[in-house]
């Protein structure tokens, strides 16, 4: 199906109280937009709104000042109802320079608010952004609310008493802007002040200047004579289940889920990885966790990383490796070895735009085929995918459970959006988490690496260092009984069938597929996997609100698929699969269930918008018959 977009009917800023708002902070790579966004997110969480964030940054580390390709942005969607995406269109755009305005203006809703730093709209910057005339003056922003302030000058004035010099003082302009936006939405400055004090604990003058700028921005909102229609907007608190909450990114949740999985299984982790965008943050996060049962190893290349992980698993730890598409491709021979020798292994793929170097900092789901099929030989392995940042915590534990419980490599598919996006998370109580203890072969009786559990078909696992269990494994086909090298034709058939049956059998050990929203049968099922959850959830919710018979089904276990999935999908007149590739999951469902599944693909490096899902549902419902 062709991707189209419907503009959602939203003019949020017309009222003093609004249900939800999308704010995007955009500026140069060096303008501190990510820090600004993170602090606004925290204040918003503490205020009690539901939220979802989307950092959107360029591949260039420090692009030339003022360049359109160097614009770094942080988007947050917050509101009083369930928020599951970072929002379609912008209610508020903060543009720290002309390039930020030029690259984001088209996405601002009619009547939306543009906050621009007039101080950065110099002739040079305007030219770099491709403006012939200054858009702040030529009336081209007339359809929007415009707050055009010389933020640079304001920040310099606020920071002046701290004697930092011009350049360092100017850096405080992001905090001045944050102060103003905090005022706009009635947020508290306390948490940001504390963060600044901690961050610059050794440079109190920098902390002081930033806090002064933050307060000055806030005070500006309170006291300045602002154009009509610009005032404090109140976003009521979201209703939430009682509990202790925090914000969490997908990467954080994934790292902590691995630590939890190790602890609950009673096993050590060896995390071996090679730096690659956008997967490196997982290595960084775990490298800081030396107080847990995890060792981290930066290998010389992707192949060494997976092999080191495999070696660790052979030695009785759980080897984990992590990369993005190009790196995972290099690991494929190692993964086949782990399948052949039946060793546990986790391979985490934080997918990015491909092929080749592709779009390193942008998101995509196009490694699904590689995860399912991208190895030599018949090499089945479980593939799972978390749907939201908080869910990364659960799926990481699930990956540990499957890998150690079935003696198999497991692939976990995250993506650039999921890794960097943050959502609210109700923190689970550790004592409520299921324990999944690992069993090693004891040091009594005859041991063969080929002995397996009749139920799970997992082979037994002996740790080197255990007396009497000395044994050899390897990539040459092994005898089903003795575990020794075997070139027997019938044995290879048997072992191939066994490897297949072991993975297929996991379907009995995973939850049945549930329907996320709507009825268990009907006219249309929108089926997703991974990070498209948020947009599909909102699109289906709105369509259902309009009276359409549509359900949302979100699949977490991609191999093996839940046992009831075929039957469930068969109960719908039509199945639509939105995914950030050219239809890989849709083709899988067609092949598995012989259903007429329709694909809605998007590969622009950006997540789906709600309006795109909604437009597809509308198109599908027109085709399938009128709304009920």
């Amino acid at each position: 199906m062709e991707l189209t977009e419907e503009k959602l009917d939203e003019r949020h800023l017309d009222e003093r109280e609004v249900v939800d708002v999308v704010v995007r902070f955009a500026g140069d790579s060096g303008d501190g937009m990510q820090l600004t966004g993170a602090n606004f997110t925290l204040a918003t969480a503490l205020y009690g709104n539901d939220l979802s964030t989307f950092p959107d940054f360029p591949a260039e580390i420090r692009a030339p000042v003022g360049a359109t390709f160097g614009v770094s942005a942080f988007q947050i969607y917050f509101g009083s109802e369930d928020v599951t995406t970072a929002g379609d269109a912008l209610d508020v755009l903060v543009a720290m320079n002309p390039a930020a305005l030029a690259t984001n203006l088209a996405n601002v809703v009619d009547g939306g608010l543009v906050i621009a730093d007039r101080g950065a709209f110099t002739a040079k910057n305007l030219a770099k952004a491709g403006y012939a005339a200054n858009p702040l003056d030529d009336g081209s922003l007339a359809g929007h609310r415009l707050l055009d302030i010389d933020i640079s000058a304001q920040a310099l004035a606020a920071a002046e008493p701290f004697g930092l010099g011009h350049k360092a003082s100017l850096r405080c302009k992001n905090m001045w802007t944050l102060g103003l936006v905090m005022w706009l939405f009635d947020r508290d400055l306390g948490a940001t002040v504390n963060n600044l004090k901690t961050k610059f604990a050794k440079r109190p003058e920098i902390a002081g200047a930033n806090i002064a700028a933050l307060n000055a921005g806030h005070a500006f909102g309170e006291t300045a004579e602002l154009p009509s229609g610009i005032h404090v907007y109140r976003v009521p608190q979201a209703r939430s289940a009682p509990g202790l909450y925090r914000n969490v990114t997908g990467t954080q949740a994934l790292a902590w889920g691995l630590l939890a999985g190790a602890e609950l299984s009673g096993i050590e982790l060896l995390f071996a990885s090679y730096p690659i965008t956008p997967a490196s943050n997982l290595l960084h996060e775990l490298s800081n966790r030396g107080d847990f049962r995890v060792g981290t190893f930066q290998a010389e290349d992707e192949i060494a990383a997976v092999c080191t992980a495999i070696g660790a698993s052979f030695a009785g730890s759980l080897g984990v490796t992590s990369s993005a598409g190009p790196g995972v491709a290099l690991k494929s021979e190692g993964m086949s070895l782990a399948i052949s020798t039946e060793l546990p292994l986790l391979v985490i793929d934080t997918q990015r735009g491909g092929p080749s170097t592709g779009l390193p900092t942008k998101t995509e789901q196009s490694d699904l085929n590689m995860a399912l099929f991208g190895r030599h030989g018949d090499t089945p392995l479980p593939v799972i995918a978390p749907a939201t940042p908080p869910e990364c915590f659960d799926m990481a534990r699930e990956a540990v459970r499957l890998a150690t419980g079935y003696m198999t490599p497991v692939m976990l598919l995250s993506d650039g959006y999921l890794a960097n996006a943050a959502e609210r998370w109700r923190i689970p109580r550790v004592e409520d988490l299921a324990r999944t203890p690992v069993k090693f072969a004891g040091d009594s009786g005859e041991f063969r690496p080929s002995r397996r559990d009749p139920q799970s078909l997992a082979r037994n696992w002996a740790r080197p260092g255990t007396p009497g269990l000395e044994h050899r494994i390897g990539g040459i086909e092994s005898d089903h009984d003795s575990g020794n090298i075997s070139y027997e034709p019938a044995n290879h058939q048997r072992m191939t069938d066994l490897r297949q049956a072991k993975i297929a059998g996991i379907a009995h050990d995973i939850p049945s597929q549930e329907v996320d929203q709507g009825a268990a049968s009907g006219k249309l099922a929108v089926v997703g996997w991974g990070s498209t959850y948020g947009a599909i959830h909102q699109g289906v919710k709105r369509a259902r609100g309009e009276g359409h018979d549509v359900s949302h089904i979100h699949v977490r276990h991609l191999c093996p698929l839940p046992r009831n999935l075929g039957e469930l999908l068969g109960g719908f007149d039509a199945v639509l699969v939105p995914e950030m590739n050219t239809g890989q999951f849709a083709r899988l469902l067609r092949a598995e269930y012989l259903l007429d599944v329709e694909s809605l693909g998007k590969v622009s490096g950006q997540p789906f918008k709600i309006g795109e899902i909604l437009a597809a549902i509308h198109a599908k419902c027109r085709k399938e018959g009128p709304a009920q």
Partner: protein
Amino acid sequence: MNQANLTLKDFASDQEVRWCPGCGDYAILKTVQKLLPTLGRPRENQVFVSGIGCSSRFPYYMNTYGFHTIHGRAPAIATGVKLANPELDVWVITGDGDGLSIGGNHMMHTLRRNLDLQILLFNNEIYGLTKGQYSPTSRLGTRSPSSPAGSIDPPLSPCAVALGAGGAFVARSIDTHAKHLSAVIGAGHAHKGTAFIEILQNCPIYNDGIFEPVKDRATAPDFRVEVEHGKPIVFGRDGEKAIRLDRERLCLEVTGADAEDVLVHDESNPVLAQLLAAMGGPGFPIAIGVLYRHRQPSFDEEFSRRKGKSKEGNLAALLQSGNTWVVD
């Protein structure tokens, strides 16, 4: 099992050895099986990891823990084994193609990191298991199925590469020279850090006799020199020849054993080690023995020290770290 009573037989697995008749690998296997009971380490702590190639079948024949892995990757897999359990004695068995061609990158970085493991590189200067193509150590002009007119890429010296990569223990020995080989491997095992041992190994099928001048009793005295720390580097049937340093040109020279400036081997001297590793060619013997030995901190020591600092991480506290809020 009482370690003291173990013999060669306890280290031989029940698998039929399937190398070609006359292969140098047999001799190496025997030497290692004979050496292990004397090392005073439990059998269950011995782990042999190999890549792909004739030599890499080695672990199947050892009654220890063993892992026959994929082409070139044995050092990386051995790294994982050692990091997961530093108590283990980890041995990498590899060949000239496996270790220096497809797996050259892992070899270089393992040596650089100085993980405490032994790398036995069987150098037969040919690809055996794929039926005789020239390898990265094949001499210039080697005729093979993939180089019928003779190879045109110059070979590398495994020991020189190991030294260049920062190897802290670099040695060379010969497959059938059991006593010498055993002593060198034993010294490698005793060394804390990566021990790189090149073993000149005859392939009777595809490269037969390539090391014959070095191995044959009649010719060996002129073609090889056994270096020993603190002893003059002397060779020849009657010990009449020696090696000296040409201090002008910074290269080695053959001289008479009675010369005043005969080089005395100093295994702690990395420059001398480079010269000895590269020594060979017309008129020169090749050096066998421990060319270089230097104790420096091993990666696994530092890794374990940092990792083992505390195991006090509290999961609940981690999940609740930073900014949280309560919804009633």
